């Protein structure tokens, strides 16, 4: 039991998975000798060899397509896309192949692959390094989309994703790669996919978030507590398929819901959650559902990045409002 950062927890899970299953291979740009631009694969090539920790040519479509081909033959490829902004060339392979091979062959072949990528803004990086377009992926039937918000969940969910028999896109919150620390037991215990984590129980209002924004969302809960507002905080963790029951039962209890994500508002995944509530949780609603999100514009370069991101202040204000109305 050691205190590790979120990115170190990723490395632990990868090493554990490669150690327990010879079919697991890691591939991507700079994942080998360099150990990944964020060090997520540090030491893996030295330990498992250049054939299982593959430095690929610079081609994201290739990385995802290789994963599909490998997976059909029983390997369990874990591809790394250096930043989510460079993942778009993989969408064709994800939509047209990875998510469908099982259906297309009616179970004859399957696609047990994981595609990892750091995502989200807040690290003062150049253009395209701050993407958070998880909603595009969470719309794809046959896929799983998972994102951790702590070292513990990073370790357990990544193990779960690698062991899962179907394709998983694993989104790693860049902003808290090192900022988030926690005690991780490297015991090979996976966490379940498809279920949300209730990080804090409360009666007055439900705050739903995932990935790096769980940090601001939890901070907002603390601040609201001081005002005597009892907040329930849900980390959705798996966006596709997501835990509808957790959302509905929490809102049934609180009657108020604030959804927080850093992606652009329109068509973001927060819309799906709000829609679910409008369809099946309406009668328990005491106040309008609120989305606190990134703005509907291009994520600005570092100088304005902070203004773009949902702040603790915006979340607190939204929750406070929700609690006043109704």
């Amino acid at each position, binding site marked *: 039991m050691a205190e590790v950062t979120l990115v170190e927890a990723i490395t632990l899970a990868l090493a554990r998975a490669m150690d327990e299953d010879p079919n697991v291979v890691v591939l991507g740009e700079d994942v080998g000798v360099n150990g990944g631009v964020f060090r997520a694969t540090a030491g893996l090539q030295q330990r498992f060899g250049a054939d299982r920790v593959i430095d690929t040519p610079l081609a994201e479509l*290739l990385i995802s397509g290789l994963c599909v*081909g*490998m997976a*059909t033959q029983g*390997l369990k490829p874990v591809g790394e896309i250096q930043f989510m902004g460079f993942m778009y060339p993989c969408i064709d392979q994800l939509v047209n192949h990875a998510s469908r091979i099982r259906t297309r062959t009616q179970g004859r072949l399957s696609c047990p692959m994981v595609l990892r990528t750091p995502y989200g803004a807040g690290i003062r990086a150049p253009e395209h390094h701050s993407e958070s377009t998880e909603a595009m992926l969470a719309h794809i039937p046959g896929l799983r989309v998972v994102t951790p918000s702590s070292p513990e969940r990073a370790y357990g969910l990544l193990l779960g994703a690698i062991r899962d028999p179907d394709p998983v896109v694993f989104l790693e919150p860049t902003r808290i790669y090192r900022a988030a620390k926690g005690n991780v037991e490297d015991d090979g215990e996976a966490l379940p996919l498809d279920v949300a984590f209730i990080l804090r129980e409360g009666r007055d209002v439900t705050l739903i978030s995932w990935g790096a924004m769980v940090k601001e969302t939890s901070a907002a809960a603390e601040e609201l507590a001081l005002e005597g507002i009892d907040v329930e905080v849900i980390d959705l963790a798996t966006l596709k398929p997501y835990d509808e029951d957790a959302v509905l039962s929490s809102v049934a209890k609180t009657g108020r819901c604030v959804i927080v994500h850093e992606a652009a508002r329109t068509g973001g995944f927060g819309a799906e959650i709000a829609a679910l509530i409008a369809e099946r949780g309406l009668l328990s609603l005491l106040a309008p559902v609120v989305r606190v999100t990134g703005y509907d514009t291009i994520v600005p370069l570092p100088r304005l990045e902070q203004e773009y991101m949902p702040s603790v202040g915006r979340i607190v204000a939204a929750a406070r409002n929700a609690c006043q109305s109704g």
Partner: protein
Amino acid sequence: MTEQSATADQELPVIARFEVRRRSYLAPDGKVLRQLPAFAADANVLRSLYRGMVLTRTFDLKAVSLQRTGRLGTYAVSLGQEAVSVGVASAMREEDVIVPSYRDNGALLWRGMKMEEILLFWGGDERGNRSSGPAHDLPYCIPVGSQAPHAAGVAYAFFLRKQPRVAVCLFGDGATSKGDVWEAMNFAGVWKLPVIFVANNNQWAISVPLKLQTASETLAQKAIAAGFVGEQVDGNDVIAVHAAMADAIADARAGKGPRLIEALTYRLSDHTTADDAGRYRPAEEVQARWKEEPIARLRSYLVSQKVWGKSDEEELVADCQQRVEAAVERYLAVGPRAPETMFDYLYAELPRVYASQREELKRNRHGRSDG
């Protein structure tokens, strides 16, 4: 600043030279152009290749008529390209993996996929892809070129496991314009993977002729960019296709790396049953190409060698007809699918949240209020 003429280039030292070779054994009339490969001495081998091509054509033409009469969906026939399908598949071993496009019917038949399965798939039913062919083969791929990275991934699995197996990826001339194919070939070159890329150059991509597809004189030379050998074969000469594939596969199996085989042939049919080539292609061009088609070519040779005769032909034709008809009956006899089965292979296990949608389909099964 001044700009000079490019002729300066000619004075520069050459640091790399490349060449593309072409393989063909039989002339269109079946005459022998050059010493045949060893396997061709065995008449049984040649007859089996011939039977494979005839069965493919018989099946293809039947499929078209099924489509015309509303009993099959859009279908891509391989008319005139049977030597590619059969020449390629016949050079593979059962444990090898084929990564086909949507037009490689003959290759999948040779691999053991049943005719009724092929019809079922093009008839709009995923169950056809369960396939009686090798369980590890990939299914028909429709997004052009997108299967090439899969082939490289499959070959990587063989490489990693040190298995003497080869992946064979088929695609068309149009597909060579896609980055997918390029990225896959480049990777295969770096890792010397056991994968053979087969460019079925039928000279058309629907209505787009080869010269609008690429400026390269051959498709084979595209392998130079990936650092391995490309070879052009006469795609209407099944002996050449089989020989080129046998060589390439043997090398790949021996760890000598990938190869690109350009099989130069011609699409004698419309692109698919949904296409009317008359809109963009003169009938004369097609007529002229019929003289080069692969089946008559091999037959002429077999006949000239006295290893094939009128009775053999009649028997074969009758046999193919009968097998195809029987398969069609089995296809038409396949029962409907329950609507809710559209969820059955979405995931290994259907996530709880989608159970209600599956249930809804089950409920509606017989009573969709708008019929």
